[in-house]
């Protein structure tokens, strides 16, 4: 079974600064996907960024980037130039790659990020 661990229940950052959220996972699979989802107070889960395990290059999406270390099973999220709208719960998630059947998303416990003005 896969497990995802987020060791930082809460974090805070000043507006315009950079913050890094940690995520580690445990799996025996070789082909999988990793995701960061954002959940604001509205409860709507929003995909922030995803990474394919077979790609060595770290994914980036505007101010969001990841540091994917496959051997260490680490997948951290860096948010640059933090904005007040980034305040939310952030979840790291894992999904096995299946060509035809797909599989469940396994989530970490979440990190509550607060961006202070």
């Amino acid at each position, binding site marked *: 079974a896969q497990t995802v661990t987020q060791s930082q229940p809460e974090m805070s950052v000043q507006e315009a600064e950079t913050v890094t959220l940690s995520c580690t996972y445990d799996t025996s699979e070789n082909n999988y996907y990793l995701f960061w989802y954002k959940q604001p107070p509205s409860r709507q*889960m929003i995909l922030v960024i*995803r990474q394919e395990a077979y790609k060595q290059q770290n994914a980036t999406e505007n101010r969001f980037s990841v540091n994917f270390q496959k051997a260490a099973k680490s997948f951290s999220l860096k948010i640059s130039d933090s904005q007040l709208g980034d305040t939310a719960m952030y979840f790291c998630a894992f999904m096995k790659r299946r*060509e035809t*059947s*797909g599989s469940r*998303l396994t989530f970490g416990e979440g990190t509550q990020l607060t961006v202070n003005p």
Partner: protein
Amino acid sequence: GAGVSQSPSNKVTEKGKDVELRCDPISGHTALYWYRQSLGQGLEFLIYFQGNSAPDKSGLPSDRFSAERTGGSVSTLTIQRTQQEDSAVYLCASSLMWTVITEAFFGQGTRLTVV
């Protein structure tokens, strides 16, 4: 519709009553997931439907929980004889079949309160 729709948004029920939660996925999405999120916690997997395959029910916490998906579209999660520990937000998500990289799109959830 444009996104995943869940109803009701909020549900208050008395302990021992049965409840039904509905999820209307994005049109054409073959995969559908149910998750439970207790206050301040992560997302706990409940059940997963993929096309015409047998659902993955391994996350259902007890036999009081069941789910069905009719016609490969709308899904209903049923909780029988509700208990206070069932109080949580129930989230539904859908995605395309995994032939290409895709993502799971979530609804806004149903907040269930058992009193």
